[in-house]
């Protein structure tokens, strides 16, 4: 009998017996969360199910991040509904300015290695960086967890992605994950898990690992996990490794050194090309933030590019730190000052303009370059705008020059640290 993948191991531990890809199981859920997009429907479904008290208030978290602060009275009232529910039930509520759900859960240690965590947000697999089995679900599935403390799952088959070698200077985890999305396509990992291995990712920080797991959603995957080799956390934990003889549906090997800066062009995250191939396209709006790339290292990278410089005339740059902790850290080390002096607009911690609800909707015909994970038509609130996705460095370089730019394009006479 073959060994087990990380997903099979975590789910077996929770199911109480060994389960393998393709089997169904019912598992206790260690933690779950919903946001202001998904919590109102979940709270309503919980009531319709006859729910009166949460199965365990300590395991349920509400985060106000998708349209926060509220842009209108309708959304303000949904936020009120969430606050009232949290007060009545005794669960945690992370209010306006706390940050993006996934960063908040990570900062506050609400997800830990070996756990099963479910979130009413499609980028919940981000916690695979923490060696947890985490899936996105809809509001009614979350309501059932609020009521029963468990859920049913089909154990996913796993695609193994092995990354060797060193990334070139100026090339980041975002460029690597865009390459994986390109290879697997937007539906190539549907119903499956993506498990990252290799010495490249073993050397990655938690933030870089979160980038890799975040964008498995753009491959259709159920979850993403990074093998815990090299994982450093500020607390003791028991890592869950895959068995050496685990069975995989597919193995992809990537040479990190061969990866150039990448961008996804409109209108799909899997339309990935070398950024150089699109160098010179004029942009008017640059956005750095989101659960993919709004962390301290991302803001620091942008600050390195923009230190002592100014963004190009006709470009506006919006930056949303992923959480209050990220904002505090970026304030204390001067990163925010550098970015503001360069002409950037800092907005509050949260999802910002990524999901098109507030805080920076593009106008008709505008070209946006963003560090987000999705560029579907209309994603940022206007179907007549185009969105390119890239790394924080590529976005900062593009803001600085006013057109899509990467390391090797267009500015040989300019020194970039």
């Amino acid at each position, binding site marked *: 009998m073959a060994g087990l993948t990380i997903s099979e191991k975590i789910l077996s531990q929770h199911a109480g017996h060994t389960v393998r890809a393709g089997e169904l199981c019912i598992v206790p859920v260690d933690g779950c969360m919903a946001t202001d997009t998904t919590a109102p429907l979940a709270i309503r479904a919980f009531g319709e199910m006859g729910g009166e008290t949460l199965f365990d208030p300590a395991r349920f978290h509400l985060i106000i991040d998708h349209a926060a602060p509220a842009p209108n009275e309708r959304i303000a009232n949904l936020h009120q509904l969430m606050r009232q529910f949290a007060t009545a039930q005794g669960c945690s509520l992370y209010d306006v300015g706390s940050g993006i759900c996934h960063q908040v859960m990570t900062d506050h240690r609400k997800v830990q290695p070996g756990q099963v965590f479910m979130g009413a947000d499609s980028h919940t697999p981000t916690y695979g960086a923490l060696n947890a089995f985490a899936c996105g*679900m809809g509001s*009614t599935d979350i309501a059932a967890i609020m009521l029963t403390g468990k859920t049913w799952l089909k154990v996913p088959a796993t695609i193994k992605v092995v990354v060797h070698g060193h990334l070139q200077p100026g090339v980041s985890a975002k460029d690597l994950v865009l390459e994986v999305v390109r290879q697997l396509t937007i*539906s190539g990992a549907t119903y499956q898990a993506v498990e990252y291995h290799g010495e490249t990712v073993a050397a990655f920080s938690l933030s870089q690992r979160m980038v890799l797991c975040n964008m498995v959603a753009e491959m259709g995957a159920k979850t993403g996990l990074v093998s815990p080799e090299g994982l450093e956390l500020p607390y003791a934990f028991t890592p869950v490794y895959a068995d050496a003889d685990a069975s995989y549906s597919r193995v992809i090997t990537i040479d990190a050194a061969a990866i150039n800066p990448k961008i996804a062009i409109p209108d799909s995250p899997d339309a990935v090309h070398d950024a150089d191939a699109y160098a010179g396209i004029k942009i008017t709006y640059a956005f750095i933030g989101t659960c993919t790339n709004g962390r301290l290292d991302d803001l620091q990278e942008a600050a390195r590019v923009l230190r002592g410089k100014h963004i190009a005339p006709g470009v506006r740059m919006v930056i949303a730190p992923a959480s209050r902790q990220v904002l505090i850290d970026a304030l204390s080390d001067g990163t925010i000052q550098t970015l503001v002096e360069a002409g950037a607009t800092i907005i509050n911690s949260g999802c910002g303009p990524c999901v098109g*609800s507030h805080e920076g909707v593009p106008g008709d015909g505008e070209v946006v370059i963003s560090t987000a994970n999705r560029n579907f038509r*209309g994603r940022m609130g206007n179907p007549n705008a185009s969105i390119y996705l890239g790394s924080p460095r590529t976005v900062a370089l593009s803001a600085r020059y006013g057109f899509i730019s990467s390391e090797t394009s267009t500015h040989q006479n300019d020194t970039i640290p």
Partner: protein
Amino acid sequence: MITAKAHVYGDHIDTDRIIPGKYTKTLDLSTLAGHVMEDLDPDFHRNFTAGDIIVAGDNFGCGSSREQAPVALKAAGVSCIIARFYARIFFRNAINIGLPVLEIPDHDIARGDMLEVHLETGKVVNQTRQKTYQATRLPKVMLDIMQAGGLVPYLKKYNDYQLL
């Protein structure tokens, strides 16, 4: 049994196209229904009659976990969806809210075809083309949730998940 007209869309129809994120923050179903498919098909409401069927290619409903996507389709009167395959969260959400979804990997349904859908068996008869298709069989727990009319009535009936 459902007998209705097919409205056919392509591959990878994402949830931003089904219901843009800017409209999702509401509990008012008529608001959702009013904006369904608006960026993809501005004529949706002119051509669609309540009870009609949405038909798509690969990976229908990819992207966000927003349950508002199937909720908006159901509120607009969609009686069921047929696709070659679905994004996983959308598929689960649709069944959870009582919107029947059938996976038919090899269908060749075209716009305007009249379909006869047998939800209990997963058989779909294309009356226009005189063809029959068979939907992929669902696991028992999903069939039970679908037959109960969604996860809310399912849990009220069984109190807990039943795999077998």
